[in-house]
């Protein structure tokens, strides 16, 4: 199938031919092979399925697909068996023959592999009935579970590249831009800048060539949705970029992706080759006269390189230092040419808008935030995973209805959004709708979509310190307020965590935060104080406990906690004594043990080892 497609009509014919080849009634086993599931050892299960299908001579009768991330990472390894969409979770290698025997061939459901609703205790048979999926709106991410990311045929068969055909075949470039403006698409990379306006400015700028770039740097240390999109559905991102390039009048594109994402690099590289073979990328795309090609640039792992001007510097082969923004990237970006930079998820939204129409898209979400957003719902949450929700859904719905609440019945404390630029939102604001403006009002931001849930064992001062330490290491060092200010703020927090804080530190942190925000060139420094400022705003009493009472209520800050043995609970099993690296925990068998505070280095080994909850941290 290497012949180039020469017109939009020919593309449509190919799509229906490929679709026709798939028998919708044929059983298909779709196994999640996203990064999370691979970490569970899914590769061995994949191999087992292949062997089993071959051994039983079922090739041709049973389809088997290794797909990208399905999103429900908590329950991997997992398979969905089509056409009924029977959902099996936490499967093992030994379950494979039974799944084929009973479910695929025998239409019988295997109870033990079904998802069990933790509330109703009911077993749930179908994927779409699982509450985790039920409350989502998986427009961008949903196809991940249906296709092999390495197969352009799969993507075409589900209607992929229709939007490109529609745009190139019947829409003037300006009409494409107008559609994106009408849809009110806003950038998913953090800032929420209106995408259509950015395209329009790049189109109208003077200069040649013009560049379009996909930002797949994904620097937020708690987010992985961009990675999963590139890994699981690379063609959707590519299609968005080609449409954008057509609208903007760009002939050159780049995808800037972290080198730490080898599977994403591999899948998008392959996708580009496949698209080029079919004439969807390259010269004279679909016979339209429009030409566009894409290069991949692997980033070197620097958070600041996600920032637009630093990213350009990095692609040009220099150290990634931002520059001042009075010159817009849309005028002078990469190699000083007009450049349109958008995030992975932003690009993946474009085909949807063109395909289904701007008005349809604008019907989803809130007044000024349209469409859906993918979040990585992680941390102290029962259902860890990637969730795609319509803008405007409340935090509570995400945390409780989709996320299933906090593990081990502990108490919810905060949800952190916006990564290192964002903030911690407390329980009192759980009913706030999630959109760009509402999150900003709360002192946080949408960011790229990390959503980290914390419980009462997480210390807010420690979390603030964590983000500052991260940013301290990632500051490029160009501006003094950012380079030195973050360091000083981190030192103050360090002192507070050591029990040596002073009440005036809180004021110092606040004015310093403001000064850093004001005096920094790029948004790294500009938003760096946010995690500190929001935690002071919402969890002031916790700071005060550290400063005044010399206590860490969550039991995290080492200098402020002591380990002791609860004599009631201790059974004298010696588990703690055995693991203690300093011989602080001691005791005779079957007698209550003790911890010598002078020797204890608070490493936590005993707490982890005790099966009777007898180690107390206070």
């Amino acid at each position, binding site marked *: 199938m290497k012949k180039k497609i020469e017109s939009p009509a020919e593309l449509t014919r190919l799509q229906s031919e490929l679709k026709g080849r798939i028998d919708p009634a044929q059983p298909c086993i779709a196994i999640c092979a*996203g990064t999370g599931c691979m970490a569970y050892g899914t590769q061995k299960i994949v191999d087992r399925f292949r062997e089993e299908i071959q051994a039983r001579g079922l090739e041709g009768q049973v389809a088997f697909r290794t797909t990208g991330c399905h999103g429900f990472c908590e329950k991997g390894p997992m398979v969905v068996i089509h056409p009924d969409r029977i959902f099996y979770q936490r499967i093992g290698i030994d379950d494979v023959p039974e799944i084929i025997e009973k479910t695929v061939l025998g239409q019988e459901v295997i109870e033990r592999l079904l998802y069990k609703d933790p509330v109703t205790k009911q077993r749930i048979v179908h994927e779409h009935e699982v509450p985790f999926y039920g409350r989502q709106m998986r427009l961008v991410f949903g196809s991940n579970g249906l296709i092999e990311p390495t197969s352009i045929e799969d993507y075409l068969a589900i209607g992929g590249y229709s939007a490109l055909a529609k745009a190139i075949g019947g829409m003037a470039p300006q009409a494409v831009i107008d559609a994106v403006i009408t849809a009110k698409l806003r950038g998913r990379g953090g800032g929420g800048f209106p995408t259509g306006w950015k395209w329009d400015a790049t189109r109208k700028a003077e200069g040649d060539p013009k560049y379009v770039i996909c930002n797949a740097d994904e620097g*937020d240390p708690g987010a992985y949705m961009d990675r999963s999109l590139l890994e699981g559905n690379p063609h959707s991102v590519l299609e968005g970029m080609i449409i954008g390039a057509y609208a903007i009048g760009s002939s050159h594109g780049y995808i800037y992706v972290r080198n730490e994402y080898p599977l994403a690099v591999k899948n998008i590289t392959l996708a580009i080759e496949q698209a080029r073979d079919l004439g969807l990328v390259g010269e004279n795309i679909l016979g339209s006269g429009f030409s566009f090609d894409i290069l991949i640039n692997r980033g070197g792992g620097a958070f600041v390189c996600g920032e637009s001007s630093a990213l350009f510097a990095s692609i040009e082969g220099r150290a990634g230092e931002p520059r001042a923004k009075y010159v817009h990237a849309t005028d002078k970006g990469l190699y000083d040419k007009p450049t349109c930079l958008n995030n992975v998820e932003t690009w993946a939204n474009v085909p949807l808008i063109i395909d289904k129409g701007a008005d349809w898209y604008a019907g989803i979400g809130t007044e000024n935030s349209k469409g859906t957003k993918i979040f990585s719902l992680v941390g102290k949450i029962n259902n860890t995973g990637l969730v795609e929700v319509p803008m405007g859904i409340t935090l509570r719905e995400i945390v409780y209805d989709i996320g299933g609440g906090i593990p081990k019945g502990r108490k919810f404390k905060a949800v952190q959004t916006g990564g290192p630029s964002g903030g911690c939102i407390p329980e009192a604001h759980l009913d706030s709708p999630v959109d760009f403006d509402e999150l900003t009002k709360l002192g946080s931001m949408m960011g790229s979509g*990390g959503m980290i849930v914390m419980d009462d064992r997480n210390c807010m001062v420690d979390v603030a310190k964590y983000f500052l330490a991260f940013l301290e290491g990632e500051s490029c060092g160009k501006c003094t307020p950012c380079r030195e200010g973050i360091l000083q703020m981190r030192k103050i927090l360090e002192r507070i965590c050591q029990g040596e804080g002073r009440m005036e530190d809180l004021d110092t942190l606040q004015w310093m935060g403001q000064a850093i925000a004001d005096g920094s060139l790029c948004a790294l420094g500009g938003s760096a104080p946010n995690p500190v400022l929001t935690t002071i705003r919402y969890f002031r009493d916790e700071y005060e406990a550290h400063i005044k009472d010399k206590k860490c209520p969550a039991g995290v800050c080492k200098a402020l906690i002591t380990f002791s043995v609860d004599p009631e609970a201790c059974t004298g099993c010696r588990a703690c004594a*055995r*693991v203690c690296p300093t011989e602080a925990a001691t005791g005779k068998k079957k007698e209550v043990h003790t911890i010598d505070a002078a020797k204890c280095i608070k490493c936590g080994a005993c707490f982890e080892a005790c099966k009777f909850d007898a180690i107390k941290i206070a």
Partner: protein
Amino acid sequence: MEAKIAEIVSKYQSNPGFLVPILQDVQKAFNYLPREALQEVGTQLKVPISRIFEVATFYKAFSLTPRGRHQMHLCVGTACHVRGAAMIGDGIERVLEIKAGETTADLEFTFETVNCLGACALGPVLVVDEEYHGQMTLAKANKILNKLGKKVVSDEEED
């Protein structure tokens, strides 16, 4: 070395714009970035050595010192952090007697911290020689170190 670098550089059409990926490939070939290799890259690309060092020291992915036989990467992404990754990092540092980012003197272990690996459901995550280990605990980390030949103190009686 010269030939290997020539091969890498020509893969990128000797285009200095691809300095970052070129250095990634060089590092892959030599396990770190030896000084002579950087000089060679500079000569072949006609880029001053100061620029090469600027780039090689800016990006976290590059190492100017040799790395250990076993690579330990602890995820300290936000999700892993809130699940106690810091405590595990302290434990590994204590046992190996190095800080994160360093290599043991016998070149057996390199211990590094990384950001989100996309496996948050398994957090805290420790990747040892590219194999993922989830729900990491101090005890599990010690066991892994033991298996790789690092004797972890537990000279206590097995009762």
